[in-house]
């Protein structure tokens, strides 16, 4: 089976006018035509899965994923009920929904599937599926927008979805059902009088669409909080679908974007945008916010011990799955162990106190809890070399050393002697030395740097530390 992939992404508006009354307003009709064009392109791309992230399905207990294979009902909008009713009968890929739910758990994310007769599919999802998949020929999956989710949680939601797409060999299309500016007129209007609510909303919408037209999706994602403050009514769901969609596209800025339509729907900004994963030729511009592989935020409010097990890392670019087993650090009268440091790969403690000195076991850059490697692993599961960032790895080593020393009651300033091990002296010495100068170099320990063939996990640097032990009371 070939590896799955995302073959396209779409942004579509949520209100029912494009389904029920496109003929009443020229702009609504243009949006409807754009929906039809998007549906045609999805067919031509031979997509075999539609994934809808809908802002009109808010959730509280993590994210919810629709898993009823054939949800059927009649949808009536809470505001625009006079436009009519939309009967629906959708083809949901329940197997994918369950796999996504499980992949979320592996990345530390709370989610659950829902499969209940009569579950009210939200207006955004109904509109998207009705118009993008009118004959139900493509199986779909729908995910809610969690009202408490932040960027890292929403990004990880996308990555776990990609895990399943790749593992199952699917050709998927990602869809965000959302408004741009979402301020509607607060009184009924005649269809012919519809327009974007304000000039400010219109200007921001056009700026967002300019970015999207250039394929700069990650830039829009990173502007998400600003956009929400500027042109969004503070409803429960923020402008977070751009986080999810950017995550689905590898947080890239060089997609091929095309705005198929942009119009007002009762004052809100509605657009149909196609983002093709084909690189546009533009540079993949820098972005500032950290990439996130695993979610480790506050989700275990009710029961920290029972409800939120530590995530198991998935095989991917940054977390080795086929490396040595992890051990609980051994305990003894003189041992020092920290929950904030990565677990050992053998039967030993993080550190041991002997007299006035602390002897630390070799410390690498792996992250506590997730086992992820900042800067990326040096090789994949098959041993094929990967590009990695020695500076990021070195900084993570120093942070892990700091955590262990702080657990002992000391600090990084207590380090006396360091033996460093590099797996590629030629490639990495310079970067390692630079970070050293910024960190431990300022403390002033003696140092020895050795080139070695390999370390037990796919990391490039490890340090063996001797430090002053803090005074015992």
């Amino acid at each position, binding site marked *: 089976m070939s590896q799955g992939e995302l073959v396209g992404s779409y942004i579509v508006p949520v209100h029912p006018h494009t389904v029920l009354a496109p003929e009443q307003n020229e702009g609504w009709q243009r949006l409807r035509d754009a929906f039809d064009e998007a549906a045609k392109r999805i067919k031509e791309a031979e997509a075999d899965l539609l994934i809808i992230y809908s802002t009109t*399905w808010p*959730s509280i207990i993590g994210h919810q994923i629709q898993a009823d294979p054939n949800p059927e009902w009649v949808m*009536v909008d*809470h*505001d625009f009920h006079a436009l009519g009713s939309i009967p629906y009968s959708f083809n949901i890929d329940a197997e994918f929904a369950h796999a996504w739910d499980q992949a979320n758990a592996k990345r530390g994310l709370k989610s659950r599937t*829902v499969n209940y007769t*009569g579950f009210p599919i939200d207006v955004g999802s109904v509109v998207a599926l009705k118009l993008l998949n009118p004959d139900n020929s493509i199986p779909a999956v729908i995910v809610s927008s*969690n009202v408490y989710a932040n960027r890292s949680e929403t990004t990880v939601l996308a990555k776990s979805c990609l895990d399943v797409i790749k593992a199952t060999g699917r050709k998927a299309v990602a869809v965000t059902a959302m408004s741009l500016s979402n301020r509607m007129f*607060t009184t009924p209007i005649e269809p012919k009088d519809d327009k974007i609510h304000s000039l400010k909303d219109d200007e921001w919408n056009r700026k967002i669409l300019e970015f999207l037209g250039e394929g700069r999706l990650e830039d829009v994602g990173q502007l998400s909080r600003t956009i929400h403050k500027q042109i969004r009514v503070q409803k429960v769901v923020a402008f977070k679908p751009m986080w999810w969609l950017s995550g689905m596209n590898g947080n890239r800025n060089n997609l091929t974007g095309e705005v198929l339509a942009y119009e007002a729907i009762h004052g809100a900004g509605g657009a149909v945008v196609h983002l093709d994963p084909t690189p546009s030729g533009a540079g993949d511009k820098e972005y500032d916010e950290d990439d996130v592989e695993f979610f480790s935020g506050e989700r275990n409010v009710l029961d920290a011990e029972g409800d939120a097990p530590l995530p198991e890392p998935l095989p991917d670019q940054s977390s080795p799955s086929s490396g040595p087993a992890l051990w609980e650090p051994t305990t003894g009268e003189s041992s020092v162990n920290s929950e904030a440091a990565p677990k050992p790969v053998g039967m030993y403690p993080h550190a041991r106190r002997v007299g006035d000195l602390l002897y630390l076991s070799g410390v690498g850059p792996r992250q506590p809890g997730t086992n992820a490697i900042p800067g990326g692993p040096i090789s994949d599961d098959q041993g094929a070399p990967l590009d990695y960032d020695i500076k990021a790895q070195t900084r993570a080593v120093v942070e892990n050393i700091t955590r262990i020393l702080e657990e002992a009651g000391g600090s990084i300033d207590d380090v006396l002697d360091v033996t460093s091990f590099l797996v590629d002296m030629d490639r990495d010495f310079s970067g390692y030395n630079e970070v050293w100068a910024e960190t431990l170099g300022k403390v002033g320990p003696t140092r020895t740097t050795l080139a070695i063939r390999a370390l037990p996990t796919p990391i490039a640097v490890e340090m063996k530390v001797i430090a002053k032990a803090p005074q015992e009371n």
Partner: protein
Amino acid sequence: MAQLAALFESWVSPDLHDSSADADIAPKRLACLMTQGEIVAGCLAPHPPHLVYAENPPQNEPVAEGGWEQLRWGYERLRESLKDVEYDAIVLLSPHWQTYVGTHFLGLPQFKSLSVDPVFPNLFRYHYDLNIDVDLTMKIHDKAAEAGLAVTMMENPDFRVDYGTITTGHMFNPEWDKPLVVISSNRSRDYYSVEVMQEMMIELGKVTREAILESGKKVVVLASNSLSHRHFTTESAIPEDMSKEHITSHAMHLWDMRMIEYFRTGQAQRILDEMPEFTEQAIAESDGGGLSWLLSTLDTPTYPATLHGYGTIIGTGNAIVEWPERNHTEGSQ
């Protein structure tokens, strides 16, 4: 007598009503001549679906092993308090029918369907069959329109009633033997501010009161909302496991107790005054306008309300409170 008949005609005929120069005066004069309607009680009656789930009524599909008893007993006390009070209809404002284009009213005589809570579908899948007092609904609607509020009658028979309305409706009156007036939650707080929301809801409350008094009907008004509204974001394996239930933070508890103290000491005006801070700092569900509307329908009461119960549901603060307006209306004291 002929003059009275003309006045009556001008009142009941929408055409004449709008065009008559005496339109504003006529209903007021006539109302004096008719039986005065009455709000017999106003209640804060929260709607977390957990309460219905825990009650195990035949209409709800999931089955529970109890839970949230403090609040369910509170509803029992509220029902007991009104057991011998005669009334004709229930007027209810639910924050889970969220409308952005004005305030909407259920406008057909009957709604019957299945309501599944999109957030807690594991707890609430309720087969409802409720009747609407369309006549009273229309009166409130028309008065609100006259006052300049944007209002709409919802007359699509396929419309599914929100779970907030159904939960409060069930917990207050499990027999469902009284017709309802159901009012949506206009999200003016989202669009503007708590202050603007409150201004609109106070106006809606005033016209609701006027319409009820002019209708000649005895009515209970219900605001279906929680107090502090910060949820836990995880759910225990057994949702009704009460060992996991508590308020999300001390700050939320303090705000809830502050509001309850105002309820119990007849300080409705202070509640309205502090509504912006309460709504923002306690992330309170008063953002939907229900509490402000309720206090306005009761003409901002200065007498103590009865606290029938307080408890938390998935971390949110919920109080069941009754203002026994029947004991405090003019001429009844």
